[in-house]
């Protein structure tokens, strides 16, 4: 049920993505051939790329190929002039996969840092509610949530690269970069992504637990002699997984989208940067593939969160 809903969502996304780009002003042919190109040249290129077909046909051609794992070929890099040697155009899949790996590495490391940290901070803030610790943690988190990611990124650059040159400002990596080197070079973008998502996750964890702390079974647990730690970890937390996993899913998705900006700032060769560049070049197949990947990640993350919500709730897991 949920799975099919997810599939429908992805499908709807693909329609929206495709139609949005079809309505964009200008197209690849005029972009590449310049303003002064002859009408026939433009027409020929459009025919070659299949841009002259009606949008609906193009959509289904594209969708059919996507189902076979073929996202088409990139527009850029193809032979511009007659007689140029060979076609330097690249398969979209080949273009995207290394970039996707880089982005997944970046967001994965950031998630591994952000999720446990925000859970610990959120739980401890709930545990010592209204203490100075709680107030400063929630206060700081509000600041980090409200700052845009490029701003946070530049603050990090200012602090950790310019004033105290600990980490590099440019995070260029390639296949040959060693793992340790990768960690070192991506430190600043990882910090940025961690910081922008942590505040939200921490605050929601805190409020999910505090919400549960007012239920009757928590008072009952206290009256049966449970310690403060036991009340939170054994009695409140198991009932808080559903809302917490939802927040984590949203933030992981946000992280992925935030990486578009962060990758640009740190010049990191990830999928976000690829997408920005491709939009600029009107490189439709690449943009569509990237957008589809973002959309499906979002849907998959939410599915996982729903699944955790079901598993953690005996009411749903064991019917009457």
């Amino acid at each position, binding site marked *: 049920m949920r799975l099919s809903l997810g599939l429908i969502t992805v499908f709807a996304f693909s329609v929206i993505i495709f139609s949005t780009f079809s309505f964009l002003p200008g197209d690849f042919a005029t972009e590449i051939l310049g303003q002064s190109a002859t009408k026939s040249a433009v027409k020929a290129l459009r025919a070659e790329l299949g841009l002259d077909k009606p949008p609906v046909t193009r959509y289904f051609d594209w969708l059919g190929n996507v189902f076979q794992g073929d996202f088409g070929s990139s527009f850029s890099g193809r032979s511009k002039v007659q007689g140029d040697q060979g076609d330097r155009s690249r398969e979209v899949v080949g273009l995207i996969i290394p970039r996707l790996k880089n982005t997944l590495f970046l967001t994965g490391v950031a998630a591994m840092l952000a999720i446990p940290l925000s859970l610990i901070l959120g739980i401890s803030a709930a545990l010592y509610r209204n203490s100075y610790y709680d107030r400063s943690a929630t206060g700081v988190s509000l600041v980090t949530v409200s700052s845009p990611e490029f701003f946070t990124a530049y603050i990090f650059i200012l602090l950790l690269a310019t004033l105290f040159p600990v980490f590099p400002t440019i995070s260029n990596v390639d296949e040959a970069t060693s793992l340790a080197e990768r960690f070192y070079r991506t430190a600043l973008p990882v910090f940025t992504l961690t910081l922008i998502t942590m505040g939200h996750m921490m605050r929601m964890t805190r409020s999910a637990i505090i919400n549960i702390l007012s*239920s*009757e*079974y928590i*008072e*009952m*647990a*206290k*009256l*049966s*002699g*449970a*310690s403060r730690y036991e009340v939170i970890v054994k*009695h409140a937390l*198991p*009932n808080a997984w559903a809302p917490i996993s939802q927040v984590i899913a949203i933030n992981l998705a946000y992280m992925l989208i935030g990486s578009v900006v962060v990758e640009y700032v740190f010049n990191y060769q990830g999928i976000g940067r690829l997408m920005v560049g491709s939009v600029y070049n009107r490189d439709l197949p690449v943009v569509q593939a990237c957008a589809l990947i973002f959309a499906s990640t979002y849907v998959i993350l939410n599915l996982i969160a729903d699944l955790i919500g079901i598993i*953690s*709730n*005996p*009411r749903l897991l*064991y019917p*009457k």
Partner: protein
Amino acid sequence: MTSNKSKELLLEMKNIHIDGFSDERWHKILKGVDLTLHRGEILGLIGESGAGKSTMGKAAMGYTQPGCKIIKGEINFNGIDLAKLTEFEKRKIWGTKISYVAQSAAASFNPAHRLMDQTISAANRLKINPTDVLKKDAVQLYESLQLPDAENIGDRYPHQVSGGQLQRIMTAMAMSPRPELIIFDEPTTALDVTTQVEVLSAMRSIVDKFNTAAIYITHDLAVVAQMADRIKVLRYGEEVEEAETKDMLSNPKEEYTKSLWSVRSLIKPEETNSDYMLSIKNIDAAYGSSKVLHNVSIDIPKGKTVAIVGESGSGKSTTARVITGLLPQLKGEIIFDGKKLSPKLEQRSKEELRRIQIIFQMPDTAMNPRQTVDEIIGRPIEFYQGIKGKGREKKVIELLKMIELDETFLDRLPSELSGGQKQRICIARALAANPDLIICDEVTSALDQIVQEGILKLLQKLQKDLGVTYIFITHDIATVKAISDEIVVMYQGEVVEQGLKSKILNPPHPDYTELLLSSVPEMDPDWLTNLLNKRSS
């Protein structure tokens, strides 16, 4: 009840003062209450809501709810003053030496853990017996509490067992570490009468068996009479009186104590009418695919009161929803004043809507919290009768007088009214439409005894003056005796019987009516014992 009562003091609370913080200021909840309890003794603590009985019960553990604090007083438990202990020290006593049984078992069990784990968690903390010994003991407790499938019921989650069973499992949980004192905080209030009997007898026998002392908190004098050796009455945070159970019942000294069973003394002579305001014929209704009403037929005589009684899940409220059109029936018809009503609310005329009004159980949730009394009552006047401006205001004031309030209430919000006043406003709102039939859905069950009496008297007076017909939905037999002309007994979506009050309440009864009526606690300390003897023979 117990023969082996000792004179050894277990708990002595002296001059307890507790303040609570609400509406931006501190209020006095308890104003110097004393309490003593001997080993193996059961003390009943009764009073209306706001009397401070629950606060007193929790204070016996040295616990106060968040937002409350102990200002003054000693709580000597086994010679230790609990008021002076730290949280950490008190935790060693909570759950093991003193345990607590809460009102709503469904809300008090953690939904994420299995019942067995929760039952033995406090005893486990003592680290005296290994887990498997505790589990065996818990199964024995389940057995002596007459739980079905005692061997395996602990493997279930709270949502998988019924309310009455949960309440018994919570008693097992309280008993598992063999405490010296158990606080029962309204443990049967949320249960149906038929379930209440089982739970009461199970709790009483297990407390007897282990000779545990207990404080039993309730607002129902008849219930506490079955459990307690002594009864203490509280009101506004102060003690009204205290006496041995038998003396208290036969000879209450204070006026206030007598008024606690005032509803039970209201009596209305029955009358009937062969002219029907409303007849429903062969109604079937369902929520989704689960069918809740089976072939229900009820006749409501004009200008009279018909009480529909039954336990939760019997279909009483669903019947009301069908009559009002909120839930269209699958089959059957509704004849209102000689004319057929269409099943769907949307297809009924404004006039038909006006003539049938409903009053709900919870006045708190039945009113828009942002509207003043004037808007709440004025709106149906304008909507149904088209009266605006000065005329409307005059009507509203007239209605307020009718419900024994006055124009000073016009600008108040629901939050500025007491529970009884809120329900009166709801009655006025129903009357504002000038209806012929009012459906009262458990209108008094959320209210205190004395307030209930006032509301019931008001409803009777209105019927006399206006000739309005009532359908009175309730699970409380005392209320039924007080207000009805005819009674309809429902069980599992079917009508068991319908007839004049005298016919239904007097034998011979169908089996279910017999069970229902005999389960209503009486003001006799031997009632439960006699009933159980009678049922087992």
